[in-house]
C-alpha cells in the first residue's frame, strides 16, 4: 500500500505545484457551460411515452388509434402501456420513460357530452428537447382529432393540459452535468494521457520499474492519483457550475453526498479508460494528436448537450458503451431532478464495473519491462 501511496503523493505534489494546470483544465468546461447556453436542434425519435388509459371508451380507442399510427410511422415515440398512473409517474421521475399520456376515466363521457374533455401529458421538463417534441406532436394529434369528420355526437374541443414535474430548466442547467463530466474527462486526458506519456518518455517510469513495485500496484497507483485529480476537478466544477447555472440547493447535504459518489465513480472510470488507451503508447505526440477526436467521439454521444434519442443509430451504439453517458445521466438525475440513489444506482454500477474492467485490462497489457 505504501508504494501506491507514494505514486499518489508524487502526482498530487506535482499537481499542487502547478496551479496553472488546474485552472486550465477547468477553464474550458466552464467556458463551454456559459457559452453554449442555447439549445441544439434535431429531430427526436423513439421517446418512450407511458399511456394510462383509465377510460377504455370508443372516443379513447379512436384517439389511441391515431397515437398508434404516429408511433408506427413517424417513430417519434414508443407507447408503453400502464394501468397505474402513479407507477407511470414514478417511472417518469426515474427516467425510464420520457412522458405520460393520461386519459382520465370520464374522458369518453365528456367527449360525448361535449363537456370539455381533456387528456393530460405529464412530462419530464428537465429535458426541454424531449418535452418540446412531445408537446408539439401530441398537440397536433389532439388538433387532428378535433377536426376529423366524426360522428356529430362527438364534440370538438379536446385540449391537452401539460403537467411539468419540475421548475423550468434553462439550457445552461441542462448543460451543467455534461460540463462537469467534461472537466473530469479533461483532467483524465491530461493526467492519464499527456503527463503519463511524457513521464514515460522522460524515463521517469524506468526509475519506478527498477523498484520492487508490482504491475498492479503501479497501475492502481496511477489510476487512484488520476482519479483524485479528476475528483478535484469535478468537485470544483460542480460547485462553481451549480452557482453559475443557478441550480437550486445544490449543496444540500444528502444531495452533495450522492454528487460526491458520482464524481468519484466517474473520475475513476474515465481515468481507467484513459490509462487503458495509453498503456502501450510511448510517443508523446500520440495523446496530443488523439485527444481532439477522443473528446468529440466520447463527449457528444454522451447526451451531455443533446438527448441521445436524437442520435443516429451508430451514435446511439457509441453512447451505450461510452462511460461519459452514465456519468452525464447520473449528474442530470441529481442536479436537475434531485433523484434518489436508486435512480442513479445503475449508472454507478456501470461506471464501477467499467473502471474495474479497464483497470484489469490495463494491468494485463502493461509491460513491466522496457
Amino acid at each position: 500500500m505504501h508504494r501506491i501511496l507514494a505514486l499518489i503523493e508524487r502526482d498530487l505534489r506535482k499537481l499542487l505545484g502547478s496551479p496553472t494546470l488546474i485552472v486550465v483544465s477547468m477553464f474550458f468546461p466552464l467556458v463551454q457551460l456559459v457559452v453554449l447556453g442555447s439549445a441544439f436542434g434535431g429531430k427526436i425519435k423513439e421517446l418512450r411515452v407511458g399511456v394510462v388509459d383509465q377510460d377504455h371508451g370508443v372516443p379513447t380507442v379512436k384517439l389511441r388509434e391515431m397515437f398508434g399510427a404516429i408511433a408506427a410511422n413517424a417513430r417519434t415515440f414508443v407507447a408503453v402501456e400502464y394501468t397505474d398512473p402513479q407507477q407511470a409517474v414514478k417511472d417518469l421521475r426515474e427516467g425510464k420513460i420520457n412522458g405520460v399520456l393520461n386519459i382520465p376515466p370520464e374522458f369518453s363521457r365528456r367527449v360525448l357530452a361535449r363537456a370539455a374533455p381533456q387528456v393530460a401529458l405529464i412530462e419530464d421538463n428537465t429535458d426541454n428537447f424531449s418535452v418540446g417534441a412531445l408537446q408539439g406532436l401530441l398537440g397536433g394529434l389532439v388538433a387532428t382529432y378535433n377536426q376529423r369528420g366524426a360522428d356529430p355526437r362527438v364534440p370538438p374541443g379536446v385540449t391537452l393540459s401539460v403537467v411539468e414535474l419540475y421548475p423550468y430548466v434553462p439550457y445552461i442547467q441542462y448543460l451543467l452535468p455534461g460540463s462537469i463530466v467534461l472537466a473530469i474527462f479533461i483532467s483524465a486526458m491530461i493526467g492519464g494521457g499527456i503527463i503519463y506519456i511524457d513521464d514515460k518518455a522522460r524515463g521517469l517510469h524506468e526509475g519506478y520499474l527498477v523498484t520492487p513495485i508490482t504491475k498492479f500496484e503501479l497501475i492502481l497507483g496511477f489510476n487512484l492519483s488520476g482519479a483524485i485529480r479528476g475528483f478535484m476537478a469535478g468537485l470544483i466544477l460542480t460547485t462553481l457550475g451549480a452557482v453559475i447555472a443557478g441550480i437550486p440547493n445544490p449543496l444540500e447535504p444528502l444531495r452533495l453526498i450522492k454528487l460526491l459518489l458520482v464524481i468519484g465513480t466517474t473520475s475513476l472510470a474515465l481515468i481507467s479508460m484513459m490509462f487503458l488507451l495509453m498503456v502501450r503508447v510511448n510517443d508523446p505526440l500520440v495523446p496530443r494528436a488523439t485527444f481532439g477526436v477522443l473528446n468529440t467521439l466520447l463527449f457528444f454521444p454522451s447526451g451531455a448537450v443533446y438527448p441521445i434519442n436524437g442520435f443516429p443509430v451508430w451514435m446511439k451504439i457509441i453512447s451505450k458503451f461510452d462511460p461519459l453517458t452514465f456519468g452525464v445521466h447520473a449528474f442530470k438525475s441529481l442536479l436537475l431532478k434531485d433523484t434518489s440513489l436508486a435512480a442513479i444506482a445503475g449508472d454507478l454500477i456501470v461506471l464501477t464495473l467499467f473502471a474495474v474492467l479497464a483497470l484489469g485490462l490495463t494491468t494485463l497489457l502493461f509491460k513491466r519491462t522496457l
Partner: protein
Amino acid sequence: MAAVEVENIRKCFGSFCAVDDLTFTVEHGEIFGLLGPNGAGKSTLIRMLTTLLVPTSGTARIMGIDVVRSPNAVRKLIGVIPQALTSDLDLSAAENLKIFAKLYGVPGERRARVVKELLDAVELLPWADKPVKNLSGGMRRRLEIARGLVHAPKIFFLDEPTTGLDPVSRVAVWEMLAKLKKEHDLTILMTTHYMDEADKLCDRVAIIDHGKLVALDTPMKLKASIPGNNILEVSFTGVPEGWLETLKSLADVQDVKAEDHVYRIGSNNGARTTVELMEAARRARIEITSLSVQSTTLDDVFVHYTGRQLRDALQEALGFDPRMFYERR
C-alpha cells in the same frame, strides 16, 4: 559466489543482436566498468541485469538470484541510476528521495533519517527543499546517486553516470562514488564511454564493441597487454616506399599501425624512439607535420582490440561525423 554472474547472455531485436554472447563475473566490492562507444550494447546489458529487459538467451544472476526468474528479489538488492536524469523536476530533492524510499519499502520511522543522511552524503543537504529544476546537472546526478541508495542496495548499477556533465562535476561524481562505495560496502557496475573515467574509477574494465566482449581485465593489465609503454602518433608530408618497415626497425618499437596517414607507434622507450624517428625522417628528407608522445591509455587499448579509435566508433554510432558541420563553412 560472485556479486554478478553473466553467462552467454544475448539480446537480439529482430536480426540485430545488441548484446552478443557475453560472459563475465563481477566480484564483491569491485567497481566494474563496461567500456565502449554508444551503441556497443552497454545500456542493453545493464537493462537486462536490472530486470528492465528480458534476455533473448543466456543467464544473469545477482548475488546468485536469477534476474528472469526472480526479478523482484533482484530489484531489492540493486540500486539503479539510469542514463537519463529522471528525477522529478517539480519536486524538491528531499521529496524525490522520500517517494523512492516509499517505493522501495523503507519503513516510515527510518525514512526521514535515511533521506537526510543520503543528502548529506552527496552534499545536497543545503538544497534539500529546493525544486530539482533549480539544481545543476552535476547536482541532479548526485541526487540520482542518492536516490539509488535509499534502500541500502548491495549492488549499484550506473549507466553512464557522468555523460553530459562538465569536467568539474565529473570529478565530483567520481569522488562521490568512491566515497559511497567505501562507506556502503557496495559493488558497482557502471558503463561509460570515457576512457579516463574507467581508468580512474574501475578495478576491472570490460571493453565491449558491437555487443561482444573484446577484452576484460584491470586497467593496468589491459594497458600492459598491448605492445609498448608509450604511444607515438606521428604524421608526415609524404613518405617513401618501405617507410612502415623503417619505422618498425627503430629502437624499442613494438608495433606500428598506419591509419589515414597517421602512424601509431608502440614503443618501450618513447624518448629514444622519438629521437631515432626524427633522425630517420631527416635522413629520408621528409617533414614531420605532427608528433605526440603519450603513455599507453585505455583509448590505445580500445584501438588495439577493436582496430578503431573510440571517437570513430562514437561517430559511427551517431550515424554522422560531427566535424562535417565545421568543415562546410
